């Protein structure tokens, strides 16, 4: 007995070494040109090259050692654990949750409500600007967008690759209507949402017959068409220059945040003049918008329409056979998702004071989709956590000065941001198709909860 296990062990090691060397060779072949050689322009603007053998060696070593460890240690370990679990036959379900886990949402909400004041107390008036604006508002915008997209992708199961188009519609509606007609933010916020929802119906109508990946590609085409029109229709949108000087949001029309205005908020409250109060106000506005999105999503999920969405996601044919009108189901999903995109867009325009087509490229759609996928399609908490980690993480990378000392002065984390997003999307789909953070379960179930499509690995169930 002992002999055979030892034999197996040495056989395993030999296999691991072989696989490791093979992986190293493949990595060498793959990265030889793209990592081993760097192309750059010299002083004469001539394209020249130099070698980077050190970096290439690092890549090859990572591939070889990674493969060696996976084959030799990680996989046998996982297999053994799975076997042990299968033998014991008991599923690990515990109803006990820690205090933090149980009250997570309440704690998070209280923290968010206090966040701007905390930031101001800790970092001072000007110091907190960065934390309220770059971290707070930025992350919350993405949370809202991801929650909006979640209605389309996570609940209704329609993969929308052009979501950013509705964000653009919202932003441009606010920018154009406030610049040309002088309407206020509070009038235009619902209007932008309605307009974007309207566009959701217009764009959703032709794609009703399509399913799955074809639908995804058509929405991508629509998203790009809207962006290209924004670039080229210069009479209205001013093309790539964008629209600047967009009016700020006011405090429900009572106080203005414009410095010169008579009813200036800071003057009225006897506060020192600083833009931080406006940012704090915006933080609460976007927080409220996010909460509305979450509330609407949760309520809709319990209504017939929400159940129809989830049924549509699980199986369209069964859904039709049961007499659910798939046309209205799909259109409402598109319109509701688009509406929240429009709200976020008009908020974005008010916060930025500037919109240009640059902000609405396909990559932006991909980022939002990545957040939804990472957070676990359908799970609101999961998506919010994913947004905090991914958006906050990149902001944090930008803050870290010491990284520049390690990787050299050219180190720009924004370049790595999308690389990480892309890799994260692949890894999540490979190992945890239901998302790293949350799980998605049907809202309606008979007697007991059952697995949903993400957890099936067989064909024909999704």
């Amino acid at each position, binding site marked *: 007995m002992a002999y055979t296990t030892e034999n197996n062990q040495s056989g395993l090691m030999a296999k691991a070494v072989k696989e490791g060397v093979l992986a190293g060779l*493949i990595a060498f*072949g*793959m990265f030889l*040109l*793209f*990592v081993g*050689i*760097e*192309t*750059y322009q010299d002083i004469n603007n001539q*394209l020249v*090259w130099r070698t980077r053998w050190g970096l290439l060696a690092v890549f090859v070593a990572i591939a070889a050692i990674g493969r060696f460890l996976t084959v030799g240690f990680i996989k046998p370990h996982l297999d053994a654990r799975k076997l042990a679990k299968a033998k014991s036959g008991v599923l690990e379900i515990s109803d006990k949750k820690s205090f933090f886990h149980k009250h997570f949402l309440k704690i998070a909400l209280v923290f968010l409500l206090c966040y701007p004041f905390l930031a101001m107390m800790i970092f001072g008036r000007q110091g907190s600007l960065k934390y309220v604006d770059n971290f707070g508002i930025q992350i919350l915008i993405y949370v809202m967008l991801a929650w909006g997209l979640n209605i389309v992708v996570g609940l209704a*199961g329609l*993969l929308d*690759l052009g979501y950013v188009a509705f964000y653009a519609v919202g932003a441009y509606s606010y920018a154009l209507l406030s610049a040309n007609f002088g309407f206020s933010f509070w009038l235009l916020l619902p209007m932008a949402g309605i307009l974007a929802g309207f566009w959701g119906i217009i764009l959703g109508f*032709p*794609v009703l*017959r*399509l399913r*799955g*990946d*074809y639908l*995804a*590609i*058509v929405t991508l*085409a*629509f998203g*790009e*068409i809207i962006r*290209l*029109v924004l*670039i*080229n229709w210069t009479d209205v949108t001013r093309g790539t220059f964008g629209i600047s000087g967009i009016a700020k949001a006011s405090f429900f029309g009572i106080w203005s945040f414009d410095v010169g205005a008579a009813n200036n908020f800071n003057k009225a409250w006897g506060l020192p003049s600083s833009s931080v109060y406006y940012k704090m106000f915006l933080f609460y506005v976007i927080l409220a918008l996010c909460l509305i999105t979450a509330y609407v999503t949760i309520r809709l999920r319990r209504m017939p329409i929400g159940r129809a969405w989830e049924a549509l996601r699980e199986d369209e*044919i069964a859904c039709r056979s049961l007499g659910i009108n798939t046309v209205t189901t799909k259109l409402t999903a598109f319109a509701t998702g688009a509406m929240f995109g429009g709200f976020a867009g008009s908020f974005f325009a008010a916060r930025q004071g500037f919109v240009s087509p640059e902000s609405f490229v396909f*990559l932006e759609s*991909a980022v939002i*989709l*990545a957040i939804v*996928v990472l957070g676990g399609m359908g799970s609101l908490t999961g998506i919010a956590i994913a947004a905090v980690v991914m958006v906050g993480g990149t902001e944090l990378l930008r803050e870290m000065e010491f990284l520049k000392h390690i990787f050299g002065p050219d180190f720009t984390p924004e*370049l*790595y941001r*999308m*690389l990480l*997003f*892309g*890799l*994260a*999307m*692949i890894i999540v*789909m*490979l190992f945890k*198709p239901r998302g790293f953070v949350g799980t998605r379960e049907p809202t309606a179930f008979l007697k007991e909860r059952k697995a949903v*499509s*993400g957890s*099936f*690995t*067989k*064909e024909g*169930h*999704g």
Partner: protein
Amino acid sequence: MEYFIQQLINGLTLGSIYGLVAIGYTMVYGIIGMINFAHGDIFMLGGFAALIIFLILTSFFAGIPVALLLLLMLLVGMLMTGLWNWTIERVAYRPLRGSFRLAPLITAIGMSIALSNFIQVTQGPRNKPIPPLVTDTYHLGAITISLKQILIVVITSILLFAFWYIVNKTPLGRAQRATEQDRKMAALLGVDVDRTISITFIMGAALAAVAGAMYLMYYGVASFNDGFIPGVKAFTAAVLGGIGSLPGAVLGGLLIGLIESLWSAYFSIAYKDVATFAILAIVLIFKPTGILGRPEVEKV
């Protein structure tokens, strides 16, 4: 009239490049029913491989004949991207076969983002211009044909013929067609399905690499985000011709090339990409089977 013929020639050249990329999309879709969103970035990798080989060879051997240089650029590019696509299929797509419907597409989008940003990180975000390789031009009356346009059309034709031969006349091609028709049945009849799919990915990547190298030769510049727009155009070509159909991919490529150059010539250059995207949407909505595609049966 001369102007029209001139645009026709330009469109044909562009269309050949799109057609080569479109074959990769259509083959992968035919065989595993997945839109390989990262294929456009494989095309971009091919262009970069050719660029780097060009730089290395011209700096070591200053007087290298252009024909040999081009041949090496194409060959190394094909090998390199073939290896990349093989690895990508192996690592990212194969484990997902049989997972839920949208998983492969989401993974492919992630792969596309990762590939273009990998090149941006390792080779820098700026455009990479190279000196013109082939400069000869011929004049027929008012029409100008450059040698590089002839080269592109000729190389494309040779590759298409070779490709047609492989798919229709060799055991490998038979295995591919069998896998396309019914994967499980093909496996039961002794076709190594995994190997066939891997080879399909390698072949698609090799054609994309040639297209990438020729794109570089034609425009003289490479950039990390060259994968997206040409990729979408090639995908449009595949859809227009009928996805899953190989002659359809070539036909679609040529049509997209012609539409693009004629549109820019007679309507507006600014909206030329809008034209492509609009065609993509219209074809998918009204005739998802394209020109030469077979109608898809809805399976329950």
